[in-house]
């Protein structure tokens, strides 16, 4: 049994596996399968200043090795989140990352300010949602906008702040450096790749939003690359994700530079995925005589 614990921004995680934002809701649906305390942490569904209904269905399509979604930040708003969901989450003995988003820097800051008064462990600012018109990816694809929204949120909270980056950019390292210089304590990546699928029979896009975010095993090589590039460009810790389906995938992202790993689509497919991945990671460490998961982080030796 290897030591799976990791520490990010001073927060101890019992293991490095965290359900990613958007696939795990607020955890309730998964408590029928296992106690949430088994998880390293939970990144909650993206929450905005006020309630959002999200996009018209259909909101998902299958890809050869993954899925597309165009949920569009459906959520009950930050007040409802804090009143109805957060207390229970905080009682679950795992690290809670409150994933937040907004149309304007002001909205994001307002949401962060409200969370600042709670006991949530970390704020994950999503500047990379490809499925909303305002904010979302718009923040995540320009250094200036990314810096601006990070700055606004930074001023609103003393909580550890992780900024979640978009992969749909020419240079993810520039964006990472921009948010780091405005005070981000960590970065998480990657959000979904912008993709599209068409129903051949009807000749309509499968998603009502036409385009959507592509996640799952098919984006893994891009995630490894971007985590590696980013970990080499910034000093703050990197939380990696994108297509992790197994403990070995998690180990690979950690070697590339991730301090912890989020798991999204794998959970959509299989509610037990995070537990399986924790076990597999542990087994892999044991089989390779490695004592601690933490030592994997950034241990790849480039040519």
């Amino acid at each position, binding site marked *: 049994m290897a030591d799976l614990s990791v520490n990010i921004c001073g927060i101890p995680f019992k293991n490095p596996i965290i359900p990613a934002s*958007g*696939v*795990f*809701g607020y955890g*309730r*649906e*998964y408590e029928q399968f296992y106690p949430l305390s088994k998880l390293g942490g939970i990144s909650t*569904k993206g929450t905005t200043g006020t309630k959002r*209904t*999200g*996009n*018209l*269905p*259909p*909101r*998902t*399509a*299958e*890809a*050869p*090795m*993954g*899925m597309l*979604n165009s*949920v569009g930040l*459906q959520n009950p708003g930050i007040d409802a989140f804090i009143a109805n969901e957060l207390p229970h989450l905080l009682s679950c003995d795992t690290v809670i990352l409150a994933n937040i988003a907004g149309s304007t820097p002001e909205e994001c800051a307002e949401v962060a300010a409200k969370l600042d008064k709670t006991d949530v462990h970390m704020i994950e600012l999503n500047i990379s949602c490809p499925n909303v018109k305002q904010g979302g990816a718009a923040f995540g694809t320009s250094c200036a906008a990314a810096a601006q929204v990070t700055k606004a949120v930074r001023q609103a909270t003393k909580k550890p702040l992780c900024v979640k980056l978009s992969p749909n950019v020419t240079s993810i390292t520039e964006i990472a450096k921009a948010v780091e210089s405005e005070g981000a304590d960590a970065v998480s990546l990657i959000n979904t790749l912008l993709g599209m699928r068409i129903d051949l029979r009807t000749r309509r896009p*499968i998603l009502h939003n036409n385009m959507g975010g592509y996640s*799952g*095993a098919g984006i893994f090589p891009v995630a490894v690359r971007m985590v590696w590039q980013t970990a080499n460009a910034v000093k703050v810790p990197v939380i990696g994700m994108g297509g992790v389906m197994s403990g070995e995938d998690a180990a690979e992202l950690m070697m590339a530079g991730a301090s912890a790993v989020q798991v999204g*689509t794998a*959970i*959509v*497919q*299989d*509610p*037990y*995925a995070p*537990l*399986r991945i924790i*076990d*597999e990671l542990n087994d892999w460490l044991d089989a390779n005589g490695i004592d601690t998961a933490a030592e994997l982080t950034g241990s790849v030796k480039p040519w």
Partner: protein
Amino acid sequence: MKHDKYTELLTFPVRSMTQLTKAAWSMVIECPEAAAKAQPGQFVNLLPDGNFTLRRPISICGIDREQGTLRIVFEVRGKGTKALSELRAGDTVNMLAPLGHGFTLPDKDSRVILVGGGIGTPPMLPLAQYFGKNAVVISGFRNKDAVILQEDFAASGAKTILCTDDGSAGRFGLVTLPLEEEIKAEKPALICACGPLPMLRAAAALAETYEIPCQVSLEERMGCGLGACLVCACRTKDADGNEQYLHVCKNGPVFNAQEVIW
């Protein structure tokens, strides 16, 4: 297929597999715990073997608590249902079940009309079995080659009315005509419907006209099937008439026809 203790929790033996028509298959799955809990209108979510990310939701067509089995009937549409159709007795299938919110049923003695269109017919069977002779099952198919489950419905004791779009079996035409006739013959306590959207719309409209409660089973593309990922949104009205998205996998698949924004 993965082999680990977690995957095993979702792995169930296929008890039998029967081809009903060129495209439709009936599968009986051994899953005592799920069978003990399952309610009419709920569904199972199956992960086909092979290169699939998303599960395939299929309505429960039979609940056998004694045998500890669930039965589903599905049509081969794309690659996933094709893969599922290749399973045979003795194979196993990766399944989450039972899922969703099923029908809310009145007393067994109530007169109900059950309307099924095509591959929307299977979830009507547990209802027919529950209401027995008090049920009228109106099922519609493209043509005689697509007709399924008529013996099962007959065995339930329900009155059965079969329609085909081309008249090649049963009555010629859509299910809405016999539906209105049956409503007029004796107003039912409930109409339950599952099938293509136009059929559901028509049934809901008739139910509204005649002021009869109507529950419909809806389809939407799904992810988790559990209510967490929010991809299976369905536009509904809340009590105040305000638009809200509910989720087919958790709030549904069965909804009151009145709350649905058609």
